[in-house]
């Protein structure tokens, strides 16, 4: 954490909100001239970062271009940033199937529910573990960490879920992975670094444990929570294996399994020896690109909305030194 010179904080500003507001105000750099070295740094910085942007953006734009291109041009390696032989046939093919939309809806539902459950569970567990005076704390941490390295294996897991009667229900997907131990440890470390004085002050003002968690700790942890929501949401969005294991009906599967199956069908030699009809030839290369676009786009759209919570220095000046 950043420690702050006490002279910049006025005595009254114990309330965190106000402190943030005050400190986020840009300070005028009066009288400080930018040096030559600094300007050179800025130029180099800009060039390097532009390079990074290009390197990260190019593959994605290339995939978008491929998804809109004719298979032949992709095979010939002629598609870079601009689609060649522009067509949206593969999009139409994928999206005209009602099962695609059913499965897409499943993905959204599973992701939202699973993320909500995971956030509640992880936050509660992490907060408890961050309290050093908790008896048996190391045992609890040990149990959590143990699962990072060992698990029961596929078949015992399956038997467990199925004997709990959770197969073919949403619970098979949203409950077993509710706590990611990695995320748990990150949250625990963050909560531990929160100044204990804040909570003491809140307790003095009459808040109980839940009040402290809900009204002090969580509002102060928005950046962390936004990060965790993103971690969880992305992992649930991309996950297919749990659904594949525990779901026996195609209308319960998420869109990831649907698209995975679609690619397998296009690649596989199921109809060997037969002439496929033109509209059935699912161009494999295009299909892969379309799949990537359709599955990543929604999650990419979430980023800008989460972005605003990534403010640094929330805690600046909350405690007098």
């Amino acid at each position, binding site marked *: 954490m950043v420690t702050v010179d006490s002279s910049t904080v006025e005595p009254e500003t114990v309330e965190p909100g106000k402190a943030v507001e005050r400190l986020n105000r840009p300070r005028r750099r009066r009288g400080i001239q930018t040096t030559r070295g600094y300007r050179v740094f800025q130029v180099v910085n800009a060039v390097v970062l532009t390079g990074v942007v290009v390197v990260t953006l190019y593959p994605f734009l290339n995939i978008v271009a491929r998804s809109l291109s004719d298979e032949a041009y992709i095979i010939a390696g002629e598609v870079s940033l601009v689609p060649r032989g522009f067509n949206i046939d593969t999009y139409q093919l994928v999206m005209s199937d009602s099962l695609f939309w059913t499965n897409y809806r499943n993905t959204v539902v599973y992701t939202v529910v699973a993320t909500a459950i995971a956030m509640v569970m992880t936050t509660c567990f992490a907060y408890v573990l961050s309290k050093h005076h908790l008896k048996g704390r190391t045992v609890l941490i040990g149990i959590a960490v143990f699962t990072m390295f060992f698990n029961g294996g596929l078949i015992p897991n*399956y038997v467990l879920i199925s004997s709990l009667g959770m197969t073919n229900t949403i619970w098979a997907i949203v409950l077993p992975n509710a706590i990611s131990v990695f995320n748990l440890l990150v949250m625990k470390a963050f909560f531990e670094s929160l100044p204990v004085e804040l909570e003491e002050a809140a307790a003095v003002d009459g808040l109980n444990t839940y009040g402290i968690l809900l009204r002090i700790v969580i509002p102060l942890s928005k950046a962390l929570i936004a990060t965790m929501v993103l971690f969880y949401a992305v992992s649930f969005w991309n996950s297919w294996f749990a659904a594949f*294991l525990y779901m026996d*009906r*195609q209308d319960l599967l998420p869109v990831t*399994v649907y698209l995975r199956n679609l690619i397998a*069908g296009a690649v596989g030699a199921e109809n060997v020896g*037969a002439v496929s009809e033109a509209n*059935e030839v699912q161009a494999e290369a295009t299909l892969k690109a379309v799949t990537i676009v359709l599955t990543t786009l929604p999650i990419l759209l979430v980023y800008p909305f989460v972005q605003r919570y990534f403010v640094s220095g929330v805690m600046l000046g909350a405690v007098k030194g």
Partner: protein
Amino acid sequence: MFQRVRRRAAVVAAGALTLSLVACGSGDDSEAEDLSANRAGAMSELGVDQQFKATEPVSFSVLYNNHPNYPLKNDWLFWTELNKRTNVTLEPVAVPLSDYEQKRSLLIGAGDAPFIIPKTYPSQEDVFVSSGAILPVSDYLDLMPNFKDKIAKWNLAPEINQRRQADGKFYLLPGVHEKPWHDYSLVVRTDILEELNLQVPKTWDDVYTMLKAMKAKYPNTIPFSDRYSQPNPAGNLLNLLAASYGMEGAGWNFQHISWDPTGKKLFYTGASEQHRQMLTYLNKLVKEGLLDPESFTQTDDTARQKLANGKSFVISGNAQGLVNDYRPDLAKTLPNAKLTKIPLPIGPAGEINPAPRLENGIMISKKARDSKNFVAMMQFIDWLFYSDSGQEFARWGVEGTTFTKDASGKHSLAADVNVIGLNPKAPKHLQKDFGFYNGVFTYGGKPELVQAFFSPEEQEFQKVMNARTPRAVAPPYPFTDEEREQVSLWQTPLKDFVYQATLQFILGQRDLAQWDAYLAELKGKNMDAYMDKVNEAYERYQKEHG
């Protein structure tokens, strides 16, 4: 407590009984097993090609491999008509095709498998046998007259015997073909052949002559640049050649053990004289610049690109690749080019058709044996998968609705039904809208049936291949569990080494004069010990069940 003891005693007694039954019966005896409690819904007698109909409504769970091209629908005519004809309702457990095998292992391992487990390829059943979760179907063949009939009529006993495990039983009901169906071969630019005034090559020596002539005319090309090199080099080419030279398989069908039908013995494929001859042939092609050395490493896309850009004229392929890949590729770049899949070139092994006559089939969950409908289920499976009328139903559907038959018995698709481009304008689809010609339920059969939906060009190819003799089938040499474990420890290093040497010899990095040194190195990798185990298993099986 007493109850439990009694039950245990009963189990032990039953076990002893079955053991003694197994011991005295070497074949597929099942008469002695008491099935009277499992006959609910069964017909008293099912005859060959008699319509099966359960005497009361019954339902069976079935693992369903869900193909994205025709996703499962509950209102398919297939289900309703099946129910009407047989009184059977199937309850599909839908699994995406992409990961079917994994889910199958999981469900069997967890003891949750449906009764009927289709789409299992021969030898995939091996790993499940020792778990005891799969039914030894060979004990119940008396319930399956159509299956027995096809095996006898089509002479499939050697193929079926190959599926037997160390206990002399087999656990898979495979799809059976009357004629082998071979698909892969070489795809050749026939316009270049015409230009050079050459015939379509018949033998591998003709292929050499053809490539030589192509090279002479176009010295800047390497006429043969092959694909299918991921994950292993030249998967298809090596496999085709191995079969033509009288070996069991190489490349993507890598087989350690081959069978010599004249000498009646098993031999190690990679150490055989046939293997050396094959390598000599390929080495000659590479040395003279006729076969692209990159064939063994390049990606499929690169190989396709070379063909499309006229940098090569010959490539491996199958019927689907020809129509879906090569022709469209070439249509864009070289519109005058013509491509044909030539009949598999003939090698020293003579005019053989190397394709196996068994295809994917059905495993049955052991749990099904205890069902009161067990007999009805076996009769139902026998009818649907092995009777002529059942096979016709699964492939063509319902006469008058999805197909018509003329006086000679030739099938044709109904005018308003399409499948794989036969009636491109038709509003309905045989697979998508009716659920017939479904990979889960349609296996094998007579050539007329198997090739029903092939293009004329492909039917022509199949006619040539059908005229050839099926390959001699190796006898069974089933391992015990311990042997299988030991052997698999030897197999991997041997396979890696054979691959490595194969490439070195072909590409000329190692002189074929060093063949004897290579054989010595193979021995250093336990080849002899491996062969001893194989022969031991072979002889044991011959003694016990032969």
